[in-house]
């Protein structure tokens, strides 16, 4: 019954889903620009120590707050350090910490959300009220509370960011799961007698993954902002390690006379966040997810 049209169907076969999604993302201007920005930033973060023109610690008393010139392309800061060097190295900590914390946040928030969406009942009722309560608090308050309690440093920041940024993921994963749980193939799996874990793994996970991927990209950009804000406030990276947030904080006193030390880290941070957002947008469109429904936190 199918041999004629089958050839047509077979050519659109399946292992290429990931490839086709990436192609789809790249085919949109927003996806192409976004992905280019993100990849450029990640490569810079990885390899900047190799090709940074100066030592990021090296001070030069003869070139304090000097404007951009042939030697220091982006000028120098109040201690005479090269801003280009510090900017291309300033994202390393932020990208490293958030690149580890984001998958952790999506993993724990996603798993709990899928479970609650499937199980429902009283546990779901209670936990979701707790989630609501957490989301009602300003994030900076929660973060500062953790840092005051456990101190700063990467080993505290990663679990802290992963914990707090996993909470909104619970909502997204639960909502996506509830849409799927109502469908007959989940009912069929229940009727066959599959366990909850097996239903989560086999029926739900693949269908919620799209929403989680887009959500993960969004969480990543929010997390970068949060990390940089903490550095700005002096709770993130400690000097002399170069960091965008720290650089902005240091240079704000000289804004009136020497604005260039602040420009470079601001542009670097914004371009990365814009890149992530553009990629997330294109990814959502390629996967057919309505970003308008996603919660913003």
């Amino acid at each position, binding site marked *: 019954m199918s041999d*004629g049209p089958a050839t047509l*169907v077979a050519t659109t076969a399946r292992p290429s889903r990931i490839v086709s999604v990436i192609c789809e993302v790249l085919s949109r201007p927003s996806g192409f620009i976004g992905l280019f920005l993100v990849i450029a930033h990640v490569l810079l973060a990885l390899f900047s120590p190799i090709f940074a023109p100066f030592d990021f610690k090296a001070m030069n008393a003869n070139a304090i707050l000097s404007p951009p010139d042939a030697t220091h392309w982006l000028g120098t800061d109040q201690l005479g350090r090269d801003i280009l060097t510090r900017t291309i190295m300033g994202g390393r900590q932020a990208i490293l910490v958030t690149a580890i914390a984001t998958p952790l946040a999506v993993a724990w928030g996603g798993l709990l959300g899928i479970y609650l969406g499937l199980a429902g009942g009283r546990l779901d009722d209670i936990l979701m009220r707790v989630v609501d309560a957490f989301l009602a608090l300003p994030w900076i308050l929660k973060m500062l509370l953790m840092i005051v309690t456990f101190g700063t440093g990467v080993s505290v920041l990663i679990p802290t960011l992963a914990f707090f940024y996993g909470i909104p993921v619970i909502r997204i994963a639960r909502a996506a799961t509830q849409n799927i749980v109502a469908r007959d193939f989940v009912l*069929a799996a229940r*009727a*066959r007698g*599959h366990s909850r874990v097996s239903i989560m793994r*086999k029926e739900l996970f693949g269908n919620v993954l799209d929403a989680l991927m887009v959500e993960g990209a969004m969480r990543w950009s929010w997390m970068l902002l949060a990390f940089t804000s903490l550095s700005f406030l002096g709770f993130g990276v400690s000097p002399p390690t170069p960091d965008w947030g720290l650089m902005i904080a240091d240079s704000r006193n000289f804004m009136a006379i020497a604005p260039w030390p602040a420009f470079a880290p601001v542009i670097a941070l914004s371009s990365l966040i814009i890149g992530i957002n553009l990629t997330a947008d294109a990814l959502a469109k390629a996967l057919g997810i309505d970003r308008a429904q996603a919660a913003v936190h």
Partner: protein
Amino acid sequence: MTGDVLIDVQNLSIGFTGRSGKLLPVLRNIDLGVRRGETVGIVGESGSGKSTLALAMMGYLKHGLRVISGRSLFDGRDLLTMPSCELQRIRGGKIALIPQNSGQSLSPNLRVGAQLTEALALHGKLALSAFPARVIQLLQQVRLPDPEVIASRYPHELSGGQQQRVAIAMALAGDPEALLLDEPTTGLDVTTQAHILALLSDIAVRLDKVMVYVSHDLGAIARVCSRVVVMYAGEIVLDGDATSVLTNPGHPYARGLLASIPRLGNPNLPMALEGRPPPPGDAGPGCSFVDRCAIAEAPCRSERPGLQPLPAGGRVRCRLPERAGSIPTKRAGKPASAGGSFGEPLVRLSNLAISYARQSLVDQLLGRKPQGVPTVDRVNIEIRQGEVIGLVGESGSGKSTILKAVAGLVGPANGEIAYDRSGALPATVEQRRPEQLREIQLIFQNPDESLNPRHTIEQILAQPLQLYFGLSGDALRKRSIAILERVRLGAHYLDRLPSQLSGGEKQRVAIARAFAAEPKLLLCDEVTSALDVSVQAAVLDLLDQLRRDVRALSDRVAVLYQGRLCEIGPAAAVYSRPCHPYTEALLGAVLEPEPGARPILMAEDIVELSPPAKGCPFQRRCHRKVGSICESTTPPQRNAGAEHVIHCHIPIGELTSAQTVSTLGNAVRPHVQ
């Protein structure tokens, strides 16, 4: 009575640009003139281009479509090249569309009267002062009782049938000369559908409208149309008066379509029409139907037949119209596997009641019982080994709920389900033994919903095989292939995703998954209602083969209304001589693809939201109500013969002798046990 040509489609081809950049035609060289006074039915399976044609008749192309050649004239002017401001005046004013689910397209926050007034103001043919009278007149024209009351209601306060009537009134508001109807009754209950169709054919005559009626349902077309056009793969393959097309069509496809429709009056299984139409752009140089045609010859593959006139009137796109007559249109099909003797009772539903009423948190704390009348109540059915029992009823009659209770997905509020002499079956899936879970399998209505879109067919079939038999690796694959072959699909399907399969193939996979568990009891929930007509027959045929295994397939039938049993008995007895008033109403409304078949409209087409607390469930709609006893007392069980039980207050003698209902059609889709 037919006059000059009003709608004239000339050599129209419409297509879209495919991924490969090639122009793929959806409509190919359509020539169709509709005269004043005609009601034309356009019939075809999904993807045949029938809706595209209907929309082109009002100068509308769906996004991405463009005209390749031809014109679409209305009253002598080409709508496809007309400027949009002029088109606006013609649409609604001269030619109106009633789309599928148009009842749901009413604005929910405006009263019916206000919406009709809006439509009248838009067309601007009347003085403002005449609006109220015209609104009432329109509602009368669609035969709504108490038009003043209806006009002051919001759409959600009306039933589905009433909403559809209001939508028809909206279309009539501009006093158009022509009405285009795109599957206007699909999705409505059988009884409602019959009422709407009666109304439409009445409107065509009484208000003298040209009607173009698009449907996949030959039964619906038979009730309304005087002329029928059959479409296949974007072409008109047959055009003729309703009688000849519906009884002795001159095209092999139309004959296959007729034969594939299950009919109540005929106990044989319908004949399956194998294969599927070529996708757009894929039809070869020859006849588009050649791959599925029983009488095709070599020249059919190389030359595309023209639409040639038939000697008896009408046109056909076939090289061999005189030989097409040899293809049977009715049931040379094989008989369904014989009923007769069955084994031991397998399942017994005793006094089953199911309630969806949930306790709120406050009620839980106060220890209150859930309120409300149960959705399903007092259902007693016994199913024996090897037997097929059909549950019949309108939507909301509790058919699916009962199946879900047996499958353990809904816990009964009362009564019990006894299973296989092992006593009561635990209420929910979690409490059942693995063996019981394996032996009871469920097949759902819509395979798009019941198959995980992210799983390959291999993964889908692996679920029951791993779970119940612990198969893996080579053994699993071998078994999967064997099961696929049982549902007549090849091994190469294993790596596909459901989205790469046709509707019929998907449902076969769903059936294969259920049979993989080697069940003793198979619960089928409207397994064919989401499929095209020609595919339905193939699926029913498959189920019958597999069971050794509804009227297409049922041995016994249980008729349900509002979750209560009305009648249960052998299929032949129930269908040929319905006794319960509700069965009479239901079967009388069934659509028969016979020209001139007229429905027997008995019950009001109202939809009840909840069953009455006391008495007979059918009391509010019954046309043979005895008296107050129907409202106060649960009807007694009356025995009308071997295993034939009727729940009614009317004495058994009167029930069996009163009515004889003529032949019955196909639209009641019984469920298989």
